[in-house]
């Protein structure tokens, strides 16, 4: 869809691969070269889907592409074309209603988009043309235009940053509207153009920019600028993401900047990122579809049975055409086969109400309205970030109640992200002020800067390329920053090359111990290694720092290499990494830093609750094994009595027999687990008394050995053994994971036996892949960035909110929607069954039992609101209990309420009630003189009695199911019944001029004058509800009995000691011992249950 619109607006555009050349200011590079205007798309943003002209056909087409709508359209068309028992209005009206409402909603949304587009496209921008500023509409910007942007303005397209009003060529930008990150980011102007600070200066620039074709990745950009000066060789400079100002972001704290447009309109990164996420379908939806198929089968078989019986019955000529009921000429002339087909279609139409249009509407409405309760929940509101939960999709509300098997989370997200105080001004001019804040996305760096300050080295910030550090003697040292190679998860380290004021060249490298230790001199490692390991055990995040002095020649060499690599348009990162790889050797180890990851508040309780709720928790983290392990202990993922099974590189050893060793280990663990979980444990699978808990620890390299083995002989076998081990362990810790491996694991579990519902939760950019992969993806609105929240289905401010989200909201939504679905099928079965049975008594002539108005209104008016109110408000167990007792979550596991068994129960109930309705009234009508004056009732009274019993029964059935009667429930339940009675009087009280037959005229009024009818209606309602009442009473008796045994939930220990700021090691140990004691205390209580 989106691709299509790009093609439309950028017709003639070459393929997306390759590069594009942009002439800055549309100036030809040299006199000799003729300037060829390249065709790029204009800067018009089109996010709207429709225009006034194509709205109707396009919208209708899209709506009828939905299978349900299409089905109802077909039914409607059959009714129009074929002579069917019910008028087309009966199915046309609801369909029309649904279509109109949807069209209005989509039209309105599109109108909003049009308005937003127009606002963006018509906003005025200043373009520098011939050293003059020209005011233009934003949509008129062409690639190559030099644009001036002032403070607090939004960039109109993707610009290469040429110059800013600041001397240092820096500007600050916030990308809040792009990726939600509200902190300021620094961008750098192209070094050689920073001086061009006026219109005249910038107009003198002659340059071309070569860059890649537009790509949606916001954080990637490679390009090269060639600056031509008269009589000089052109200068080439590399361009990276730090030079690119993205459309949609806003200029902050910088007076103005000049930039040249490189991507415009629909090719900007913002536009390329604007696309719908792939649709996730919930398990409930799959169940609905399965039930729909069953009902479709029922429908078709009903129609087939009726058609067959009709022709058998009609084989008697006196049945086929008695003298009093002669066929029309048309009927006589139709072929038998065609007549049979028409009859079949007529029966389909007559019974089609069994699959109601309104169910889809109600389900959609329930989901849409229901998700507001998540966003509204003040318990999931975080005072710190002033935000509550965010619902990105309402399609999965009920899935929150289904997260059964696995819960993935990233260890880091359990931890407080380090507080970063944002200064009001971030323009780096605060050097002289007392309170200086360092802005960084990495908590380690902050810790390092803070730590250094403690020892007397204060980082003062940087000016242009120089960084200033105040040393212990209060002198200011200057370092020139020459090259940076940023951290990446593959290299697991970061390096900078600086030049001291004395002219020495230094390389600093920080990174994970595993990547630093092999690169430093052996003899230095020993002591640090001990420290690092101890710190890691205590749950600190450790980093090692090393340095190396470079000689002049060395530096010159790598400087050339790096400059060359930086010019590269392809694989730039890889090339640079390779060069750094070479020089990052034989370094001197400076030491290690350890940063404490404080657990987020209530993280441990939340994890414990989720485990109790029957979820398996897997931790996927990039951290060191030791760090991750201690985090797991702290967050009580592993208990002290948990036996740990390790599959790590350490266990494998370095030998070539790695794989064999791995297989041995796998088999050993597997055997161990099998002994512990004997085959007959099926019944006890979710019982409370788990004899021994196992935890599995695996690291990234071992995992890749299992997932991508070298020889594929018995690999799949080991993979399945591995999976079995994983599924038997209560918790699994995967450390040293690359982002893609996380997604790989999610996929593996998702596709494992039993197709467990998976949930991923994370807060960082590297969690996005696994958030997208899982059934339900939850983002934490962390401080590190908003990408996780943006790509998630739901976003919560804190990890602890997961507890309420899953245990309370998820549980309730699941119960609500499951009940909604079952109830809908049930009420339509007992609605249509009497109509089916009536065919046996009217010569299979497709005579409708109910009046057309009743057929139409049944699902729309009489029975729709009570179930909607129920599905929004019901709390069969109140929220506090749900949140505090995670075991309740298990009750609804495995889609329990939408399995075939409950479905069969509801279907039987519906069938029973349908039979009672019909045959009750049938026997009543053995003598149709039911009025005290001997007058008789006809067929419409028959139908109306059945219908009255039906409406009352299904509504009262819902009333029986309702456990939580708010005034709204009272209002809609009793209101619906009152409305039905009122409507019936009204409908029968007037001769309607537009009706051909006044069938219902005073039928209802006459019905209620008959005492027998009253008694029959009351009796039939009672009989229909009797089994249900019995069941409820017995259930409650059982429950009451069960409740007499008081159960105390294990008291959850609060991690107060850990929350109190920076804890010393001692305190941490206290907490752990505390924890162990509690663990022992808790076990007997659990077993009591």
């Amino acid at each position, binding site marked *: 869809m989106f691709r299509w619109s790009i093609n439309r607006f950028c017709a003639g555009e070459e393929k997306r691969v390759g590069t594009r050349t942009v002439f800055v200011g549309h100036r030809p590079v040299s006199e000799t070269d003729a300037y060829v205007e390249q065709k790029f798309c204009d800067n018009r943003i089109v996010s709207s889907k429709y225009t006034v002209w194509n709205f109707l056909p396009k919208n209708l087409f899209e709506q009828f592409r939905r299978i349900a709508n299409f089905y109802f359209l077909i039914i409607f068309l059959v009714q129009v074309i074929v002579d069917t028992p019910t008028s087309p209005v009966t199915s046309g009206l609801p369909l029309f209603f649904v279509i109109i409402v949807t069209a209005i909603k989509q039209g309105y949304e599109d109108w909003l988009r049009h308005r937003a587009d127009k606002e963006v496209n018509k906003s005025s921008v200043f373009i520098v043309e011939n050293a003059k500023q020209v005011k233009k509409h934003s949509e008129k910007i062409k690639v190559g235009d030099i644009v001036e942007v002032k403070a607090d303005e939004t960039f109109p397209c993707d610009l290469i940053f040429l110059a800013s009003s600041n001397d240092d060529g820096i500007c600050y930008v916030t990308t809040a509207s792009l990726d939600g990150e509200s902190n300021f980011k620094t961008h750098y102007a192209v070094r050689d153009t920073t001086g061009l600070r006026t219109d005249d200066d910038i107009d003198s620039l002659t340059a071309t920019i070569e860059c890649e074709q537009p790509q949606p990745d916001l954080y990637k950009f490679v390009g090269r600028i060639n600056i031509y000066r008269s009589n000089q060789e052109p200068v080439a400079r590399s361009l990276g993401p730090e030079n690119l100002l993205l459309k949609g972001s806003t200029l902050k704290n910088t007076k103005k900047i000049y930039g040249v447009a490189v991507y415009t309109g629909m090719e900007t990164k913002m536009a390329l990122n604007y696309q719908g996420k792939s649709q996730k379908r919930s398990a409930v939806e799959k169940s609905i579809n399965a039930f729909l198929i069953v009902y479709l089968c029922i429908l078709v078989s009903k129609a087939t049975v009726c058609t067959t019986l009709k022709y058998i019955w009609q084989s008697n000529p006196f049945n086929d055409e008695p003298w009093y009921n002669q066929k029309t000429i048309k009927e006589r002339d139709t072929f038998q086969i065609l007549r049979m087909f028409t009859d079949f279609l007529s029966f389909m139409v007559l019974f089609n109400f069994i699959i109601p249009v309104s169910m889809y509407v109600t389900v959609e409405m329930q989901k849409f309205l229901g998700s507001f309760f998540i966003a509204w*929940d003040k318990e999931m509101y975080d005072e710190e970030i002033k935000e509550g939960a965010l619902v990105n999709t309402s399609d999965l509300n009920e899935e929150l109640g289904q997260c059964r098997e696995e819960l993935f989370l990233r260890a880091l997200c359990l931890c407080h992200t380090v507080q970063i105080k944002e200064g009001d001004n971030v323009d780096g001019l605060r050097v002289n002020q007392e309170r200086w804040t360092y802005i960084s996305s990495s908590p380690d760096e902050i810790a390092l800067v803070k730590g250094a300050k403690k020892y007397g080295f204060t980082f003062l910030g940087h000016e242009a390329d120089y960084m200033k550090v105040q040393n212990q003697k209060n002198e200011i040292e200057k370092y020139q920053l020459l090259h940076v190679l940023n951290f990446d998860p593959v290299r697991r380290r970061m390096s900078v090359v600086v030049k001291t004021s004395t002219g020495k060249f230094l390389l600093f490298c920080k990174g994970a111990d595993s990547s630093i230790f092999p690169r430093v001199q052996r003899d230095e490692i020993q002591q640090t290694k001990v420290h690092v390991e101890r710190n890691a055990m205590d749950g600190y995040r450790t980093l090692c720092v090393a340095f190396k002095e470079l000689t002049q020649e060395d530096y010159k060499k790598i400087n050339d290499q790096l400059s060359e690599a930086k010019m590269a348009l392809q694989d730039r990162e890889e090339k640079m990494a390779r060069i750094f790889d070479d020089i990052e050797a034989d370094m001197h180890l400076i030491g290690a830093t350890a940063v404490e990851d404080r657990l987020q508040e209530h993280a441990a309780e939340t994890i414990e609750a989720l485990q109790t709720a029957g979820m398996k928790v897997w931790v996927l983290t990039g951290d060191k094994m030791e760090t991750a392990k201690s985090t797991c202990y702290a967050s009580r993922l592993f208990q002290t009595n948990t036996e740990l099974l390790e599959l790590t590189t350490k266990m494998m050893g370095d030998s070539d027999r790695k794989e064999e060793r791995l297989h041995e280990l796998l088999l050993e663990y597997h055997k161990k687990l099998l002994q512990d979980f004997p085959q007959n444990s099926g019944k006890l699978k979710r019982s409370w008394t788990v004899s021994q808990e196992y935890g599995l620890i695996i690291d990234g390299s071992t995992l890749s050995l299992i997932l991508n083995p070298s020889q594929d002989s018995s690999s799949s076998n080991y993979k399945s053994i591995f999976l079995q081990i994983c599924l038997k362990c209560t918790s699994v810790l995967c450390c040293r994971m690359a982002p893609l491996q996380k997604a790989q694991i999610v996929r593996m579990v998702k596709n494992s036996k039993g197709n467990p519902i998976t949930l991923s939760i994370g807060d960082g950019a590297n969690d996005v892949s696994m958030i997208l992969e899982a059934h339900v993806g939850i983002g934490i609105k962390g401080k590190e960035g908003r990408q996780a929240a943006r790509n998630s289905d739901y976003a919560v401010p804190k990890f602890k909110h997961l507890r309420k989200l899953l245990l309370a909201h998820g549980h309730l939504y699941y119960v609500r929607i499951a009940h909604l679905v079952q109830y809908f099928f049930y009420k339509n079965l007992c609605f249509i069954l009497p109509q089916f049975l009536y065919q046996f008594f009217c*010569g299979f002539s497709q005579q409708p039992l109910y009046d057309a108005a009743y057929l139409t209104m049944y699902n729309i008016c009489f029975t729709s609101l009570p179930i909607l109110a129920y599905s929004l408000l019901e709390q069969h167990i109140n929220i506090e209990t749900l949140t505090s007792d995670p075991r309740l979550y298990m009750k609804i596991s495995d889609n329990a309420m939408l399995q075939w068994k409950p479905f069969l129960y509801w279907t039987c109930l519906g069938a029973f009630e349908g039979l009672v309705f019909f045959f009750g009234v049938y026997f009543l009508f053995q003598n149709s*003189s039911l009025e005290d004056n001997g007058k008789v009732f006809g*067929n419409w009274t028959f139908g109306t009695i059945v219908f009255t019993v039906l409406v009352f029964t299904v509504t009262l059935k819902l009333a029986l199911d309702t*456990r939580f009667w708010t005034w709204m429930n009272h209002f809609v339940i009793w209101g619906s019944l009152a409305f039905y009675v009122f409507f019936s009087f009204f409908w029968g009280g007037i001769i309607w001029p537009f009706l051909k037959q006044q069938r219902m005229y005073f039928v209802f009024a006459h019905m209620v004058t008959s*005492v027998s009818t009253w008694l029959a209606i009351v009796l039939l309602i009672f*009989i229909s509800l009797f089994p249900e009442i019995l069941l409820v009473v017995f259930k409650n008796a059982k429950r009451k009995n069960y409740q007499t045994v008081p159960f105390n939930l294990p008291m959850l220990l609060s991690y107060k000691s850990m929350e109190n700021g920076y804890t010393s090691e001692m305190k941490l140990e206290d907490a752990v011992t505390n924890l162990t004691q509690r663990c022992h205390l808790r076990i007997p209580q659990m077993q009591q249950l």
Partner: protein
Amino acid sequence: AMAGIGALSGNKPDNTAFTQQRLPAWQPLLSAGTALPLFFCAGLACLAVGLGLHFSSDTIRELELDYTGAPGSGHNCSRCANASLAGAGGCTCSLRFELPERFPGPVCLYYQLSNYYQNHRRYSVSRDDRQLSGDASGLSNPATECSPFRTDPRGIPIAPCGAIANSLFNDTFALYHLANGTFYPVPLDNRGISWWTDSNIKFSNPELINGSLETAFKGTTKPPNWPHAAYMLDMGNLNNTGFINEDFIVWMRTAALPTFRKLYRRVHEGNFSSGLPQGTYRLDITYNYPVLSFQGTKKVIFSTVSWMGGKNPFLGIVYLIFGSACILTGFVMLAVHIKFQKQNQMDVE
């Protein structure tokens, strides 16, 4: 799919009972304690109603006379039945019968047809309510649903059109009571046998032209099966002829099931205002209506009525059964309840 609920509301969510799902609510629990009295009460109430219905139904006197006259049945009306098979009408036959006991008035006289599908869709749509409400355009241009009884072969519209009207039940009955050796006619009242709203509002004759209904019906023809036009249904009685003829209206209210009865006359006048005395009666039948061709039967039913309408044992019996079931369940539950309580007590001890 929808985007970002909650994204817009950056400020703190409202702390109302509704948004926090803390609306005050009634949380009933149908426990054994509340259900037990409920079951007993409901059971007793049902038993009471059931007994009432049962005795009422029992006091209703009903006499059915089958006069189909199937061939070989040796029935008095067999002759007429054979004639009707041959297509001839106007045959009369008589039935003599005894009333074993007095039927207290008012006594209703019904006719009952079986295997007659008035609820067949093709049949039941074959009418034009607009025409029957006296609409002039309905007279001149009947609804297409009436086909094949919409117009006659010459194209003249039929009034009343449609299969229902065409198949109007046209047997007539006259009742005689034997007293002192002679049969005295029992007056049969044909007023008030249809719904008041039908005969006064829904059905109405076309506007009289020069005081004549016949002129009003001009330009239409009678249904093919009728012996004469609609305005001649009850000659001389302008309140019961044409479309507002009560027999016609009763017939036009299509029955729900293939075996149905329709009210024909009431006995509540003259010497018989207190009912039909015990004794011998003779029923003279004008046998016009053929039913043998579709294996139907015809019956005449004499029935008294009560507050619950005609005789219907079904309702009373089901009430009695359901009431007993409720009480039985109540007892079972009581037993279970007591047992559980004892068990709990023992557990506590």
